[in-house]
């Protein structure tokens, strides 16, 4: 029966390639062959084409040879009688379809209809890809569902979307069924779309499906160190790492089949709600290739089974849906029932370690009234006081656990978590309240999640929620004292005061030769794992991604090399990396997986370094955008003169200390300057530098290396008088 599918896919591929040819001709007529063509802000050109062929499509002229290639891959439609083998052909046709669609969507960016319009988002830029890609690395997102078409009605669409969200899957949406799209069905029911809620509307045309697959290709390039043009590894990477699938809702026409065939190349099967032929034998995908006629109430489970995905969700007994996708849901003021904390309402959230006999596990106490007694639209006093005990619990882990509250309670639909410590402004939505959500459920969530994720260190969790203003204020005193004490303890910690560093190999599944070495003064380059986190994570899972590294004998204290660290590195980088300097970006710098928050680059003319963060999409003085830098430095390579790191590291005493330290900083984007300015000022004071923050150029004062130098001369930047950097 799958001859029907192969024939349809091949017909569809022919149609789409033809459409792309027409669109390209039209675009060239308007813009000329030399007109640049691109998806915005990506270092990966048209990513599927780049991944599969290694060809960087830069201009409309380049597109012609791509379409020639696509045409060369178009097989004939299988004969009615005595047909020739068609599976290989259909898969090639699928890939030809994707090539053509990338060209087509690229043209749309130039002559319209613009892919970004209304609810539609078009291509994800590299900022999003890196930010979200990391979730596919650490398992926060087990995969994505590429929904093509529309559900029979909006309510069914919402049900399917919610179910996928609760399974932590991303939902990528494209195409339509007779003019109706899944994404529009969701918005009609007031569902929030966007990357934050994991409900991503790419485009209403079938051709927008390439954005889903291109995203997958880019993840392999960025995190898997797969070389452009190494199509086989890229696709196998996707088969074995990115657990995605196509959910075809509504009638499947030739063009949809062509896209499904394209997806099968990646090992992404198709699950359909209509009666289409099935392809059950396995091989290209992990299990079945096409399954059909799945009822809507079973389609999510079936898709997960067919893809071979294991998702362990611990059910939390609360009246609203729960999962990472809901963390991104914002609650606007008009949708808000009440706000915890905020103007005139004191609030805090606090974790404290207790002796095990002092507390009762699972005890949730309300001191003060619950939500129903507050007036809608007001700010209410709220103190979330969490006591934990456990044989392996340490005082140092308190802030780590506390930091998780944001994620844990934010993942409940109807709670919007903002702020931390004594600066909270959490919102509860009207809808949530109507569904039965109460403050005691915050306790339920915290109790369940602490046990689920931190069970190795936490044996007992007791939660008290204060809503009585006087009680909250009373508790605040204790809380403030604890915070002050905690800050002091952390400040006193430095690289010299510890014998152990920690490794982080979380990204090795994607970048097999990279590992982060984490010290108290240099956190993991993604910014999400500090030395304390590493320590706690090791306690929680002794065989996990964070392992203690005995520093061992000093080789060079200045650049930060130790025998023990180098030995560990060699053994754990598949014998690819021999030495790492913790404090230098020139001699044996640390490798990068590709998910760093910032990257520092040598500016030889300026005798200094520039630092750019992930969100900055403009050109930088080194002549490369962040995305290009990330593309060339990621993947576990040692690149002298380049170093990926966290934002936190910029203010560290050890920031490129061997290369001259923070005084070398000559350029960074304004936004980053604002964000980490207080670190910089503090450190500058220690170094005796005056008005240093303002001496660092930004995009408003310099966009080329020459301009940076001119600015430095104008403000007399200290790097000018330092020893030559190289």
């Amino acid at each position: 029966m799958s001859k029907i599918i192969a024939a349809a896919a091949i017909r569809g591929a022919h149609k789409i390639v033809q459409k792309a040819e027409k669109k390209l001709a039209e675009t060239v007529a308007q813009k000329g062959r030399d007109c640049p063509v691109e998806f915005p802000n990506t270092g990966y050109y048209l990513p599927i084409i780049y991944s599969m062929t290694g060809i960087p499509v830069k201009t409309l002229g380049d597109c012609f040879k791509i379409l020639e290639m696509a045409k060369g891959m178009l097989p004939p439609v299988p004969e009615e009688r005595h047909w020739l083998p068609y599976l290989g052909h259909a898969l090639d046709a699928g890939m030809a379809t994707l090539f053509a669609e990338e060209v087509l969507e690229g043209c749309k960016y130039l002559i319209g209809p613009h892919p970004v319009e209304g609810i539609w988002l078009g291509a994800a830029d590299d900022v999003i890809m890196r930010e979200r890609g990391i979730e596919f690395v650490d398992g926060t997102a087990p995969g994505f569902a590429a929904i093509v078409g529309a559900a029979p009605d909006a309510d069914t669409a919402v049900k399917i979307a919610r179910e996928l969200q609760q399974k932590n899957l991303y939902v990528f949406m494209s195409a339509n069924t007779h003019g109706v799209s899944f994404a529009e069905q969701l918005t009609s029911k007031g569902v929030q779309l966007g990357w934050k809620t994991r409900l991503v509307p790419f485009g209403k045309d079938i051709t927008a499906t390439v954005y889903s697959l291109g995203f997958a290709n880019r993840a392999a390039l960025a995190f898997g160190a797969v070389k452009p043009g190494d199509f086989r590894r890229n696709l196998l990477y996707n088969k074995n790492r990115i657990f995605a699938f196509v959910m075809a809702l509504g009638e499947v026409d030739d063009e949809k089949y062509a896209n499904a065939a394209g997806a099968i190349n990646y090992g992404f099967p198709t699950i359909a709600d209509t009666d289409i032929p099935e392809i059950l034998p396995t091989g290209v995908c992990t299990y079945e290739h096409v399954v059909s006629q799945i009822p809507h109430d079973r389609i999510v489970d079936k898709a997960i089974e067919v893809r071979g995905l294991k998702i362990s969700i611990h059910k939390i007994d609360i009246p609203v849906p729960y999962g990472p996708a809901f963390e991104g849901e914002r609650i606007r003021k008009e949708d808000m029932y009440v706000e915890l904390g905020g103007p005139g309402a004191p609030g805090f959230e606090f974790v404290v370690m207790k002796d095990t006999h002092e507390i009762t596990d699972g005890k949730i106490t309300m001191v003060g009234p619950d939500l129903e007694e507050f007036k809608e639209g007001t700010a209410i006093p709220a103190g979330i006081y969490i006591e934990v005990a456990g044989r392996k619990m340490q005082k140092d882990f308190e802030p780590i656990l506390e930091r998780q509250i944001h994620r844990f309670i934010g993942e409940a639909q109807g709670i919007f978590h903002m702020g931390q410590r004594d600066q909270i402004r959490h919102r509860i939505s009207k809808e949530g309240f109507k569904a039965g959500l109460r403050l005691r459920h915050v306790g339920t969530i915290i109790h369940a999640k602490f046990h689920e994720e931190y069970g190795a260190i936490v044996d007992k969790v007791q939660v008290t929620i204060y809503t009585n203003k006087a009680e909250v204020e009373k508790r605040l005193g204790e809380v403030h004292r604890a915070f002050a004490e905690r800050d002091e303890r952390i400040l006193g910690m430095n690289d010299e005061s510890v014998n152990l560093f920690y490794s982080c190999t979380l990204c090795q599944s994607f970048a097999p030769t990279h590992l982060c070495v984490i010290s108290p003064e240099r956190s993991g380059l993604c910014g999400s794992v500090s030395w304390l986190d590493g320590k706690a994570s090791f306690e929680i899972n002794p065989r996990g991604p964070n392992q203690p590294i005995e520093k061992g004998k000093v080789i060079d204290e200045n650049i930060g090399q130790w025998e023990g660290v180098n030995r560990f590195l060699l053994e754990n980088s598949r014998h690819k990396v021999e030495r790492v300097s913790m404090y230098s970006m020139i001699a044996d710098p640390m490798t990068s997986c590709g998910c760093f928050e910032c990257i520092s680059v040598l500016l030889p003319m300026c005798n200094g370094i520039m630092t750019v963060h992930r969100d900055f999409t403009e050109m930088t003085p080194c002549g490369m955008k962040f995305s290009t830098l990330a593309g060339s430095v990621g993947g576990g390579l040692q690149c002298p003169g380049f170093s990926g790191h966290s934002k936190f590291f910029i203010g560290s005493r050890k920031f490129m200390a061997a290369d001259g330290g923070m005084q070398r900083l000559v350029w960074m984007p304004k936004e980053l300057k604002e964000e980490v300015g207080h670190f910089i000022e503090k450190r500058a004071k220690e170094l005796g530098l005056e008005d240093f923050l303002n001496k660092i150029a930004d995009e408003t004062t310099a966009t080329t290396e020459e301009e940076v130098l001119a600015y430095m001369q104008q403000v007399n930047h200290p790097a000018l008088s330092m020893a030559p950097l190289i």
Partner: protein
Amino acid sequence: MENKNPTSKTPGNPTAGSASLKLLERMKAEGIETIYDRYQLQQPQCGYGQLALCCRHCNWGPCNIDPFGKGPKKGVCGADANTFAARQFLRMAAAGTASHADHARAVAYLLVAAARGEAPGYKIKDEEKLMMVAECFGVKTEGRKINEIAEEVGEMALAEFGKPYGTQLFVKRAPESRQKLWEKLGITPRAIDREVAESMHRTSMGTDQDYRNLIKQAMRLSLANGWGGSMLATELQDILFGTPKPVLGKSNLGVLKKDYVNIIIHGHEPIIAEAIVMATSDPSLTKAAQAVGAKGIAIAGICCTANELLVRHGIPMAGHMTMQELAVATGAVELMVVDVQCIIQALADTVQHFHTKLITTLSKAKICGAEHVEVDEEHAVEAAKKIVWMAIDNYPNRNPSKVFIPEDTGAEVVAGFSHETIKYMLGGRFRASYRPLNDNIMNGRIRGVVGIAGCTGPKVPAGDENYVSLVKELISKDFLVVGTGCAAGQCAGSGVMIPEFKDACGKGLKEVCETVGIPPVLHAGACVDNSRILIACSEMVKEGGLGNDISDLPVAGVCLEWMSEKAIAIGQYFVASGVFTVFGMNSPVTGAPDVLKLLTEGLEEQVGARWAFERDMKKIPQLLMDHIEKKRDALGINVAKERKLYDMEDRRKLEV
């Protein structure tokens, strides 16, 4: 009657064998002798010969050994039954190996000549394959011209026949564990000519007289065929003539065309055949044919040349080897051009009854009564044109009243399943791999793979189609079949090699055939192309999940009507490569029970595979299936497994 409804429940052409029968009847009526007649005249065939108990290796003999133990137990020199049989076995394997090797040598010379521009008409058609072989041979490719690379590859290939030191280069394409095993046993094949010469030496009077040592040499020698001569022939032919891809063709005597100048190409080497194909593309020849009253020129093949032409060009196949006389007897063949191997001398007599010309082309293979037109690489197309002209000129001599073409017997066939094709068709150009095959063997949709190879002959009743019956049974139980040589030729003529034949499969195999769009019986080429099956087996091992060596795979090989000495060499190299191999008919060593025991039991310990000889054709399918199920049990894939669902931890363990 042609099978009008190819998707009916019992597809295939039930009257395929009847084409032969009709022609035989006719020949009988006309008083023309056939192999069946001559076979009858030979009855009873020599019992000593059948039992391998006759030795005439020296002039002290001929000596016989009495199988009943009453008469002599030894030859004059003292050689016993084991030595008699093992020496004969080794000599047969040596002749078989020499056949494939000499075939390969001709191709290698042609490759060098083509690369040097000294073989007009021939060129490098498959550069990708050339690069693959170059890499395997360690020939530098970077920055070099294609012809330069091809020349060096050709020269390296020629060295494989007579190099003084070292072993066959293609051996490294085998799974590592197999290579190590050969090394341990000391049977990694050296230069091909050396293995053949040494085998002849060792079997001469008063030399190697330990049957175990002789059979061991038979393994090394045969491996020099499978991983040497045959593989060289296959790969170099692919370079010159293109690697086979799926193609629709037609087979059986019905492919001969009544109003055309019919040329039959018969034999084994595609060199001449390709030259004839090139020659007939000249429109002036078609015009000439029309000038003598024909509609055009039709080419068809017989025997392995037919297989080669079918898998590469979809050129019709008139039949397998027992049909060579029958093709002439249609009275519609103007000319039959032949090269080497399996061309029966009787053809020279058969053509006397018709206007057909029989043309030999190589100085190494002449036949009394045939005309000879020498074809060498430098003048191949020229010579081919001359031959086509002879056919055209002969058309007016055709006697229409003698023409009898069983036109309803042409069966369609989808052929061309080279190892590369199989890989491509399972995943397209971006995901080409054996993974889907391995997966579906592991999940039981496909129970295993059976290779059918080899000859047809008069020892079975005319019109019986034993290979066809065998494959029907195998596929109905979900065993995938790959065929080469005349076994494939017979299947091709019977309509079982079309994708619609999936309906005759078990549920699992049918699903796979539908997914991929393949027939359940795959035509992989000529007998020399059994090397493709060796590579396919190696790839299956490398793909993973089916053990660490070829001997772990759920596969088996079978030849029902073995005739040629080549069959013995092929069987022996399959066994030595780890494939259980069943031969129908008698064993070639029946009179020496120790040798028989070594072949059918003892080798298992050495190389993990053995021979089986089974006279009862009906028992053979079960023998093959039981073996494969045993392998499946050993692999643990006969136990139903729960679907594994992958969490992040599991995924990290997967290779990327």
